[in-house]
């Protein structure tokens, strides 16, 4: 008797994602469901494919096989014959807009001020008026503690400030899901705290988040689930508390011993 319980549609449903670069298979069939409000930390050694997986979800990389469904809308699927088919370009762009992304290297627009960085996409992509978006942008900048830097250019900011602007810029598009690709890895150690605090605040507001990170304390304290990836596959996926207290797989154990 199948369960009659109505399952909520996952925010992201990724099935059997495969991806290779120049003959090397970097993702060997990765599947993951992310529910609303979940904060998932993806950890693993460098070269394990975790960043590539994240970049596949919002179409920065093209997958070879598998399917990705975002809030019930199909970004890409693979038919029985093995042909991988993406939604048409404009459609794919619309689907991917449900996800905001924060990069390791910030990628702020250097020719625009902090405020202009935040309002650029709402203006050009959503076609909102300045009057409509500026108050909201200022609210977001206040939230990340950078309202005073409104008129500054990115080159005048510290790394931590840049990353907080990048978070505000992503939030300005009102995404349902936030993807973070090693958001603190390019920062001086003393600057990671301010970025992690902002992310923690987002998690407390029940933003759905997928975070590729080397910050074990963030994974342990903030995430609802931790995923350990190695050699292009998910080795172990467990609630954060369990994962750190009692890693089951020897590879997970070895990695955590090394990191903690």
């Amino acid at each position: 008797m199948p369960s009659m319980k109505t399952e909520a549609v996952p925010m992201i449903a990724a099935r059997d994602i495969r991806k290779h670069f120049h003959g090397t298979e970097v993702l060997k069939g990765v599947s993951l469901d992310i529910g609303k409000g979940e904060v998932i930390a993806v950890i693993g050694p460098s070269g394990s494919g975790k960043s590539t997986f994240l970049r596949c979800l919002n179409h920065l990389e093209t997958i070879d096989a598998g399917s990705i469904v975002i809030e019930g809308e199909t970004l890409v699927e693979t038919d029985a014959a093995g042909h991988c088919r993406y939604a048409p370009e404009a459609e794919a762009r619309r689907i991917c807009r449900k996800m905001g992304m924060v990069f390791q290297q910030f990628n702020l627009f250097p020719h625009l001020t902090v405020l202009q960085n935040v309002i650029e996409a709402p203006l050009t992509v959503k076609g909102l008026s300045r009057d409509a978006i500026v108050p909201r942008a200022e609210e977001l900048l206040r939230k990340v503690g950078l309202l005073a830097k409104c008129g500054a250019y990115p080159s005048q900011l510290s790394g931590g400030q840049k990353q907080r602007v990048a978070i505000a810029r992503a939030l300005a598009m009102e995404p349902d899901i936030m993807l973070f690709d090693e958001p603190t890895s390019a920062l001086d150690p003393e600057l990671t705290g301010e970025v992690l605090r902002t992310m923690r605040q987002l998690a407390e507001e029940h933003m759905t988040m997928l975070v590729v990170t080397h910050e074990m304390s963030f994974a342990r304290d903030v995430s609802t689930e931790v995923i350990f990836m190695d050699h292009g596959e998910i080795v172990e996926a467990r609630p954060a508390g369990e994962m750190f207290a009692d890693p089951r797989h020897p590879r997970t154990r070895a990695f955590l011993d090394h990191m903690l």
Partner: protein
Amino acid sequence: MDYFFQILGPLLDGTAVTLQVFLLTLVLAVPLGLALALVRVSHFRTAAGLVGGYIWLMRGTPLMLQMLFIYFALPFVPVIGVRLPDFPAAIVAFTLNYAAYFAEIFRSGIQSVGRGQYEAARVLGMSYGQTMRRIILPQVVKRILPPMSNETITLVKDTSLIYVLAMNDLLRAARGIVQRDFTTMPFVVAAAFYLIMTLVLTWGFMRLEKRYAVYED
């Protein structure tokens, strides 16, 4: 001194011709160069290849030869054959030639903008066109100012090549007076005129660079 004012008239007339060729070429060749560069960096392989061939042709043959071809040989080419008066012929040749150089400057500028900028625009939902217009090209302007300054200064002096179509630009006007009066004074005055024009250009580009210095990449 009287002699100076006497030759000033013809030399200023020549300067007017020089400036016309310079300004018209600039106004036409910069947008054409940008369009060529955008095709060159696009994913349309065939079109990009054709533009590559065009740039090779235009940079690989002398501007003077191109000008002579358009003025003297083009009328006899089947189908596209058209007889142009001297001034339009010069403008067409200069525009086609300089667009090729400008295209390469734009291309290098576009390709110097990192992949991260495209990715950031993409994850914010921007299309390729929006990304180019709002994110990439505004950054390109700052990066290409020094080579553009170089190229436009070269253009001022290259305008003297139109003498082969018997047009009275600044240099040809000066040479005419030198041969008539057996004095080198017109050459000195012409040199001063060229220097003033390039000085204005240099100053203009310096102002632009200062304006774009408000941000760093």
